[in-house]
């Protein structure tokens, strides 16, 4: 990419400094990911990627310094990293957190979530109030704090990003964290239970004193084949929604050749989901340990954390934990005494639901637009930088730690035959104690709601699985929350969100917002999703205004859903109609009396 053409726009001195500071953080690892390979989706395209993967950190630096991605700043980044300005602009315009027009103010920006749970909790008046106080306000999608709705996040201008609700220290987080069920003796209790000292979640001493590091020791003692055998025997499946068997994924990557990667997908952006944020905030060292276990098991040299840009506290603690793990020798040229090199680099997303989709995440991390790739080929053979890649979310990874600690048989003693182990559920909305709950797979919806303090008022509907999930009615309280039972009932657990609505909620407004969410979050790459989500939103809006759907409208919604589900590239399009259709079937689109 030799002769790139740039305009005459120059960066300011502070923009230049900010970008260089952001890049120097990773300079020690420059060259660690130098690959040239045929691009997976667009096979045959050779792209040089030595530096481009630093595009997102560089854009973050510009945004924080100047409040926007200026032409001069973009030119500087493009020249430094060898990225054509049109492509860098295409990347910058992809993300919610980046502006490409100069702001009319010098303020940090207050993001206010307007998704259903926060809307019920008064997001609109909050945004109005903040505006009246003279703040710059950006109303946007879920911020992953549904247990303390309405959520806000401050995107810093020349100051670090922060979440006001994080302010009072780690103890405030425990408000979000409610006990596990008695018969669920695992993650929450052992890793981040209330019985532990949370004053210093990134102290490796404290972590070791309560048994931290045991999984890594066990993994090194057992070796690749035995670790994967145990994970497989435990029946662990991915907790991000797709429920893919983790053992099969790890086996495939372990069998691959050459440089490999492990990616911790902490881009949970599903409305109603906040579990991985809490796990990272409360036990960052366990996450780092689990990534090292995955890396050393499959023989990867490179570990990556891709975390939501809206999670500043979790980011800060993970960064600190990485440093601690390096100083303790868990990471480095001889990671944990294994003889293998393994290190972890952290990257922040910039506001894009789609980047939680694994192949979109790869593209985003590599410095391209976060557009999903067509599968096959799958990440196990063609993942990050086109290499074999394990990608798991923190909940899944922590389950591996647990399996190595207690063994697959003990692990399987909890949960159901088809869904062994426990699941983290994110309870939000009209329940007594919104928060994160761990329960064995198979717990009934009613039991889970009781655990969270019961439904406030009269239950109208529960949205299982978030925006990509589906509504169930009050008659579903007996539904066992396992993979197989929810599937049989035509619904899904997804990543574990359980959004509760009582009869005071305007359900048609909730559904319209969900439709708007997909319209806003579609990446725009494929036609069925790009146009289908728009037509779906328009139809739902029409139906809401008219009070009830006509027969042609029902049919058209079904037609759109079938095409999005069948012909879209990725899971976003496949599930974009699920909540709307299930809501319509339950009559939630009908105008409510009173």
């Amino acid at each position, binding site marked *: 990419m030799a002769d790139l053409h740039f305009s005459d726009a120059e960066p300011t001195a502070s923009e230049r400094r900010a970008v260089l500071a952001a890049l120097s953080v990773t300079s020690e690892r420059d060259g660690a990911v130098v690959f040239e390979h045929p691009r997976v989706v667009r096979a045959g395209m050779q792209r040089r990627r030595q530096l481009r993967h630093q595009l997102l950190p560089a854009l973050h630096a510009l945004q924080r310094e100047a409040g926007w991605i200026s032409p001069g700043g973009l030119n500087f980044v493009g020249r430094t990293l060898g990225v054509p300005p049109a492509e860098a602009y295409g990347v910058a315009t992809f993300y919610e957190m980046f502006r490409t027009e100069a702001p009319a103010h010098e303020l940090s920006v207050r993001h206010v979530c307007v998704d259903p749970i926060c809307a019920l909790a008064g997001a609109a008046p909050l945004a109005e109030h903040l505006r009246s106080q003279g703040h710059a306000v950006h109303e946007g999608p879920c911020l992953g704090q549904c247990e303390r709705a309405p959520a806000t996040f401050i995107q810093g201008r020349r100051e670090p990003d922060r979440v006001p609700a994080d302010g009072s220290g780690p103890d405030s987080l425990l408000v979000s964290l409610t006990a596990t069920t008695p018969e669920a003796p695992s993650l929450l209790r052992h890793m981040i239970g209330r019985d532990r000292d949370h004053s210093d979640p990134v102290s490796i001493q404290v972590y070791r004193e309560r048994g931290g590091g045991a999984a890594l020791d066990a993994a090194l003692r057992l070796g690749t084949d035995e670790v994967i055998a145990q994970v497989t025997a435990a029946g662990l499946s991915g907790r991000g929604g797709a429920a893919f068997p983790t053992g099969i994924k790890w086996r495939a990557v372990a069998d691959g050749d050459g440089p490999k990667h492990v990616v911790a997908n902490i881009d949970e952006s599903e409305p109603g989901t906040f579990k991985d944020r809490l796990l990272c905030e409360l036990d960052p060292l366990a996450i780092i340990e689990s990534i090292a276990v995955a890396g050393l098991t499959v023989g990867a040299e490179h570990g990556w954390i891709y975390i939501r840009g809206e999670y500043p506290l979790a980011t800060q603690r993970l960064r600190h934990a990485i440093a601690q793990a390096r100083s303790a020798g868990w990471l480095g040229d001889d990671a944990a005494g294994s003889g293998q090199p393994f290190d972890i680099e952290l990257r922040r997303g910039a506001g894009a639901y789609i980047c939680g989709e694994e192949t979109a995440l790869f593209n985003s991390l590599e410095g391209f637009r976060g557009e999903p790739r*067509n599968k096959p080929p799958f990440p196990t053979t063609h993942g990050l930088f086109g290499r074999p890649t394990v990608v798991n979310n923190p909940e899944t990874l922590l389950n591996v730690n647990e399996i190595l600690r207690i063994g697959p048989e003990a692990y399987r003693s909890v949960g159901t035959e088809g869904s062994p182990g426990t699941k983290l559920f994110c309870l939000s909305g009209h329940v007594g104690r919104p928060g994160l709950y761990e329960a064995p797979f198979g717990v009934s919806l009613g039991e889970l709601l009781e655990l969270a303090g019961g439904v406030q008022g009269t239950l109208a509907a529960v949205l299982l699985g978030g925006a990509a999930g589906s509504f169930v009615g009050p008659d579903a309280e007996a539904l066992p929350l396992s993979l197989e039972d929810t599937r049989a009932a035509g619904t899904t657990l997804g990543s574990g969100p359980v959004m509760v609505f009582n009869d005071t909620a305007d359900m048609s407004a909730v559904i319209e917002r969900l439709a708007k969410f997909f319209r806003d979050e579609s990446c725009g790459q494929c036609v069925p999703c790009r146009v289908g989500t728009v037509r779906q939103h328009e139809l739902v809006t029409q139906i809401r*205004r008219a009070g009830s759907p006509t027969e042609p*409208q029902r049919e058209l919604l079904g037609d759109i859903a079938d095409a999005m589900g069948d012909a879209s590239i990725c899971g976003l399009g496949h599930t974009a109609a699920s909540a709307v259709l299930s809501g319509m079937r339950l009559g939630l689109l009908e105008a409510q009396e009173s």
Partner: protein
Amino acid sequence: MSSGNGSTTSQVTVSIDGHEVTVPLGQTILAACTAAGVDTPTICWAPNLTPVNVCRVCVVELEGSRTLVPACSRPAEDGMQISTDSERVRHSRRMVLEFLDSANDLSQATEITAWSQHYGADAGRYGSAVNDAAEVEISQVDDPVRIQDDLYIRAYDRCVLCYKCVEACGDDAQHTFAIAVAGRGFDARIRTEYDVELPESACVYCGNCVAVCPTGALQFRTEFDLRAVGEWRPDDQTVTRTVCSYCGVGCNLELHTQDDQIVKVTSPADHSVTSGHLCIKGRFGWQYVHAPAFEPPAADTSASEGPSPDNTGS
């Protein structure tokens, strides 16, 4: 895997709508469909570009696959059972065409509109006809036509975001990277950085983007101007194949002429030298053909008797 008839691994046999067809290993389902004589609609696919599988109009039903798969990019594998005309396939193809027709001006995309008719796409379903009682705006791609030079125009209300121009400008042909997709979702558009005008961008005016555009969103200025006065008559045009005279590479040109005037220059996509791509000279440097033949003016006769002022110092 090898096929049952013991053929070598360099060939694969798939079933297309119940008929077995054998193609070389590495070929796509689309190639297998073509080999089987099955016509497949495509928009974002072109023979001289890497498949990006974004338009999804070529989807087929593959036995064992939960969703439909794009024929244009999915490699054919031995034993695949493929349906190209099932109810699911027809439905998704119809919806893709309907979606595009409801969002874009497809008046100049004759191939696409022909497929829309074939599959019975009815974009009117999204209009107010569905529900007159509620007035909800039906979003359409609305973008003023960009006329920034004499060589080609960009009318993005006709753009279906097939990525072909981006690929031709980038890795697939020109390696100029003047344009990319910017924005997200329905608001995604093909843009230069900050939408600067083309002459200020990296554009080198090879016109390869125009040549691959399936909808007329990118159009040579000659065609645009003739259409504006109702004088664009493809049926009256002749195509003459020749070799570009500018350098020694040997690019083949197709000169499209109407009323003895060159109105467009293309190159065959299957040409071994160009793969359909040209440079600014071959693509746009044909005006001299229409220059009046040189006739020495009378005054020059006397001038030629002595040295011209330009030559005196040499």
